[in-house]
């Protein structure tokens, strides 16, 4: 199955995302440069990877969200293409308006890199259906701007419609509602601050992230 990773200047988890996709599909993903204007038609799943696109200058993800390739990504996502934004990728998707809310500076002001324990707030999505809703999973976080914010109305709406997918057990960044990951209304665009691609290998970070890839790839 053909997948793709979008690469921005100073993406830095693009290789990790590619390894995760290849591990789960047996096939190397397309690496799509941000200046490309379209995502190849054979692509069935896209990862917007972590990193510090454009150095996180101005606001994390803001400049990347204006890239030529994002226009096409938006269109294809509206037509149903599944997209996973991880960390900086999540920031980019919110900046591009593909997911509600915004990611602000961590409440503690510091960059935080640790294993975070997550609760499945919604284990019915295309990305999470292989998880046991009762289980908590361990996935590393590494970010400076992971403090999820949405206004009261938006928060009520996404909570009400099951769009909150992951919550922190120990909120590391001040996110409202302990939100670690959300999905769009259509259920095909997931954004999360923790790094599931760093949790697919027993020698490195455990394997609790695998089911995200297995769930979504299995749904295609």
């Amino acid at each position, binding site marked *: 199955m053909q997948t793709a990773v979008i690469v921005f200047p100073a993406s830095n988890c693009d290789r990790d995302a590619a390894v995760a996709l290849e591990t789960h599909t047996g096939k190397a993903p397309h690496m799509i440069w941000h200046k490309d204007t379209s995502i190849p038609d054979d692509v069935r799943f896209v990862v917007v990877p972590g990193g*510090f696109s454009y150095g996180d200058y101005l606001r994390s993800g803001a400049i990347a969200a204006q890239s030529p390739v994002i226009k096409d990504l938006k269109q294809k996502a509206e037509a149903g293409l599944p997209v996973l934004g991880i960390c900086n990728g999540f920031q980019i998707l919110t900046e591009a308006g593909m997911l509600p809310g915004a990611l602000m500076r961590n409440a503690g002001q510091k*960059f935080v890199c640790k294993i975070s324990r997550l609760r499945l707030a919604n284990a019915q999505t295309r990305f999470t259906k292989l998880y046991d809703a009762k289980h908590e999973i361990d996935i590393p976080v590494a970010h400076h701007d992971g403090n999820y914010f949405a206004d009261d109305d938006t928060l009520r709406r996404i909570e009400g419609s099951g769009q909150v997918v992951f919550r922190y057990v120990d909120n590391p960044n001040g996110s409202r509602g302990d939100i670690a990951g959300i999905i769009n209304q259509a259920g095909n665009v997931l954004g999360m601050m923790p790094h599931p691609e*760093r949790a697919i290998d027993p020698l490195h970070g455990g394997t609790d992230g695998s089911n995200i890839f297995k769930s979504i790839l299995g749904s295609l």
Partner: protein
Amino acid sequence: MAGTSKSDDITLDVIAEHGISGAEYKIILDRLGREPNLTELGIFSVMWSEHCSYKSSRRHLGKFLTTGKRVIQGPGENAGVIDIDDGDAIIFKMESHNHPSYIEPYQGAATGVGGIMRDVFTMGARPIALLNALRFGEPDHPKTKSLVDGVIAGIGGYGNCVGVPTVGGETNFHAGYNGNILVNAMCVGLARADNVFYSAAKGVGNPIFYVGSKTGRDGIHGATMASAEFDDDSEEKRPTVQVGDPFTEKLLIEACLELMATDAIIAIQDMGAAGLTSSSIEMADKGGVGVALNLDKVPQRETGMTAYEMMLSESQERMLMVIQPGKEQLAFDVFEKWGLDVAEIGTTTKTGRLVLTHGGKTVCDIPIAPLADDAPNLNRPHTPTAPRDVIEPSDIIEPQDYNDALVRVMTDPDMTSKRWIWEQYDRHVMADTMDSSQSGGDAAIIRIHGTNKAIAVTTDCTPRYCYADPYEGGKQVVAESWRNLTAVGADPIAITDCLNFGNPERPEIMGQFVGCIDGMNEACRAFEYPVVSGNVSLYNETNGVAIPPTPAVGGVGLIPDLSLIKTLKGAKAGDTLIMIGETDGWLGSSIYLRALMGREDGAPPPVDLAAEKRNGDYVRKLIRNRRVSAVHDLSDGGFASAACEMAFSSGIGATLSNPSDLPAHAWYFGEDQGRYLIATDKNSINPILTTANGLGVKAQIVGTVGGDRLTAKDGFDVSLSGLKDRWESWMPTLMSGATETV
């Protein structure tokens, strides 16, 4: 010729301000056959500064063992290169950014990380790991908190953004660093052994390319600043502080590696200290060619820059390279794709001279050989440090309360958890970190991408030992590094060093320097553990008070099979604890003495290099034979602290015993060298003890693993979680509350 005639600007004051001695100025006059102009004087000044010329240290560094069967490139290039089989090479180096970090901690530390990364990717390696060795002043010194805050944020800010994991390091606090903190950064990169790039500019008529950020007036005289001690007027001498741009660095890495995959690059050199000057001169000197540069073509950030400013600027994120004629367009295309400034600024020549033109005029025309080769090579007087008395266990009274003693040792600033630091570093990016600061282990372990092998990396130095006895301390630095790699099952291969000392013009400081080097070198030879790269930072003193001698080393070892890794976190209930190595109960210069009695006296523990090697080789063999479940070396704080750390990391308590006839404080807290603590299941106990006996290795049972307490039958008995909380909370408590800017 315009611009090279004697300039009225060159007064005696100007010469002195450039740190050029009378004798040195005579050499310049002699080599040029005339007086230099200001640009030329500036160039001589930085090239002959301590920082660039190593004038006080060169003759002593020459003693180091620098070759070995895995050494591909020793000192002399941007970084050292070692062979790790299968055509893979590891390229690594450590460097100081002490002075800039004291003046502006965030940017100083950040640019230190950026600089050391450039040294590594310049040679064709993708950076795969960063480490940092830090020394701060006393915790309650008014400046310490903001320095810690800024330095850690700066290291994280740069490394995290570039996307290279920061996997380990060390952090000390001591009054000796109140006025001069040390920020030493190490970078480790991975390359193909047959695609390593060097700096020698070969061939005449080849184009010289400038790539990266534009040149501004940053850090002019940074190199000379690093070569002078601070005093109360240092404010005035502040050069424009360099600001790091990790975004550009990341692009530079990707662009350089992309171009390196072609055959377009003949030679490449990053612009570090003394920027364009030292990079162009070193490349030319190594290649035996001359260089002509047109400074009008240098990308500039500011208007009206003079030749002097351009040549001495230390703007960051810049590279110089000699390109294969005919490949110019390819180079332009790659760098432009990555959005970097790129310009062809000159050519290599056969004149053997550095010729600079600016505004249509020749502004510098000097022979290159004297700049590099005739640089001063001083034999500064050195007075050995006087030996200290040995402290016997019986000289030190036992504590009244062993629980309190254990807590005080484990909450000594140097001993406490550094979680507050390493949680600000991305340790996992690149997805090959097998072990890092997170487990508190002896060495970080990085898998070689896509293979079943890994490297182990560690930084080490025990300044209090080096201060007490530079020679024994120097041996210990190298021995601990070797031991830390051994303790995770790695074959130690080579080290990089970062030698931080005070003012070399003082014979007692020079004595520390020479003593440390001699001790380090003896250990390097005993372990066949060569030095392949390094850096010297002198003049770390303020108002005549020098730092403790701090020769930090960064070690790299190879783990040939991922299934053979052992760390301190694998101890299981029911395991037996065995100590490898001899214990005399050495309390001189120990953490125990400092933490409990406020004393820093006594001779430091000597290192028996033969025993160290024998013990280490045996421990490595036990790991390879899958005989152990956990391993930790014994260092600061002795047996008790090693047992605590193993217990914290494994999440299980232990009961410790004292089979010796030493008093409990000497047995549990003595810092004898060459020792390891291993945990093993009961089937392995006898084989381990018997084989050790046959090899002449001391091995004895010293406890069992289990429960939720740390208990020593003749000493302490504390709850593991209670102790761990105190150990973990020291640094967050220190750093809580407001931090003033420095």
